[in-house]
């Protein structure tokens, strides 16, 4: 019996996209091994440095300062062999769309000096509204770019280990590690489940049937997720895992790392000062 080639539901499209996204997560492991500026920095220093740059990006009240921080992020990407195409596709466009929706009403509802009237609707666009929308979008773009740079230039095990060294609670680090480990399997399982169901459905389902299918699939997936998480944890325990992450690479702070930490701190303090 031929598989139904009809339109795929929102859930199916979403799981398919998530599977693709997780495939890209493996790409991140390869960029983390590239020879670049950020890749050469000790993960603990890098984590602290990136956090130090995110703080002024979130706190600065000067548009030019945030723009300069964004330029720093772009320069770091260039020096770390992270292609702009990747940043554009994974950060800049999605963040613009997401925050764009959130800030869309701001230019019309924020009180202030009117700079433009929409001809058909007669709505007023205020300078203050435009500025606050611009601030939010630029802040989000800058902070997200820094975060993604950290992930793309650091192996996931090293991020987790750096978090532990910096005294982030073991429970939190364990949860992060587990999530990363079995998320891919769960999504693959969901994807397979939808594919299998689609191959046994002929014609279009009614909205009610679709809702029932989605609800039952969610229930089955939840049960599978629980079993899978348990299995993965047992497999880790079986090979001696307790709560701490051990990696083959020992972290070592060298002169270069201290210099980079100093540079991160200098940029952060300057941005905080100028953007206050």
């Amino acid at each position, binding site marked *: 019996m031929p598989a139904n080639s009809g339109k795929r539901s929102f859930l199916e499209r979403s799981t398919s996209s998530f599977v693709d996204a997780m495939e890209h997560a*493996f790409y991140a*492991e390869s960029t983390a091994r590239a020879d670049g500026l950020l890749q050469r920095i000790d993960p603990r220093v890098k984590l602290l440095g990136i956090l130090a740059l995110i703080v002024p990006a979130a706190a600065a009240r000067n548009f030019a300062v945030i723009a300069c921080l964004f330029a720093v992020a772009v320069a770091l990407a260039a020096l770390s062999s992270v292609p702009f195409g990747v940043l554009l596709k994974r950060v800049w466009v999605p963040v613009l769309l997401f925050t764009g929706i959130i800030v869309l009403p701001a230019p019309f509802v924020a009180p202030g000096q009117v700079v433009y009237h929409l001809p058909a609707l007669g709505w007023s666009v205020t300078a203050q509204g435009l500025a606050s929308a611009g601030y939010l979008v630029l802040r989000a773009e800058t902070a997200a770019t820094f975060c993604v740079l950290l992930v793309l230039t650091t*192996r*996931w*095990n090293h991020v987790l280990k750096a978090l532990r060294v910096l005294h982030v609670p073991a429970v939190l680090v364990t949860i992060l590690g587990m999530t990363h*480990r*079995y998320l*891919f*399997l769960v999504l693959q399982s969901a994807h397979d489940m939808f594919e299998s169901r689609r191959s046994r459905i002929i014609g279009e389902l009614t909205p009610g049937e679709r809702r029932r299918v989605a609800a039952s699939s969610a229930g089955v997936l939840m049960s599978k997720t629980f079993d*899978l998480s348990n*299995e*993965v944890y*047992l*497999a*880790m*325990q*079986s*090979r*001696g*895992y*307790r709560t701490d992450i*051990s*990696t*083959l690479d*020992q972290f070592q702070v060298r002169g270069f790392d201290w210099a980079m930490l100093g540079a991160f701190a200098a940029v952060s303090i300057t941005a905080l000062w100028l953007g206050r």
Partner: protein
Amino acid sequence: MSRLNPGGAVQATAYELTDVTYRYRDVTALDRLNLTVSVGRRIALLGANGSGKSTLLRILDGLCFPDEGTVRFCGNSLTEESIQNDGFGMDFRRRVGLVFQNPDVQLFSPTVFDEVAFGPLQLRWAADHVRRKIAETLEMMEITHLKDRSPHHLSMGEKKRVALASVLILDPEILLLDEPTAALDPRSASHMINFLVRLRGGGKTVVTTTHDLDIIEDVADDCFVFHEGRIAASGPPAQILGDTPLLKTTGLLHSHLHVHKSGEVHAHSHLHRHEH
């Protein structure tokens, strides 16, 4: 209730289980089980799906603990408390290795290299020793060419080999294998069987669960047949394989329709054997 040890000869005891009962909610997976596993023996646990074999392996690996009864490992009581003890827990994990039936739950690291390194690193081996052992183990399992690949992108046969390598690197005295040939293509299954045959006389205690009767004479010295959470029979492979009524009762042998060269179609029991 008899204590079963078909090996007969006086040998040091690796495991001693007394009246072990394990339940999953309302289902009794193991029912007052008594079993002794001697050091250096190769044991096959035979049984249909759901007969309690995998549950027993998890108990032997200290991943779950019986609701009733006791488990002793090399003379020491194996309990949730004892496995939490750093000294005993680390020693136990070094000496006992479990290869899961589903390799996907066992492969959670970004690369094959990291996966094989995971166990030794949790047991705090020195970095140089870990690197040397990884190289040796990858070569022994003929997967050196996969070391930089993501485990999720491998074939089932390759995944099984990586899962086995991730346990063998610890050189455990006791190897627990859950359905090692399940879901493998003939070539991968043959590779796995060859490996299991080479373990003969290697001094390791090997406990293999399987319902593949074709392999047990090659991989086991003693067999235990499981049925509804109990040991229905035990003995050397030739004796068990010769007991057709037992194999039928316990769901290990079945009749299915097949076509003869003459074109005749009928059903009767078959025990498929391979060529020597």
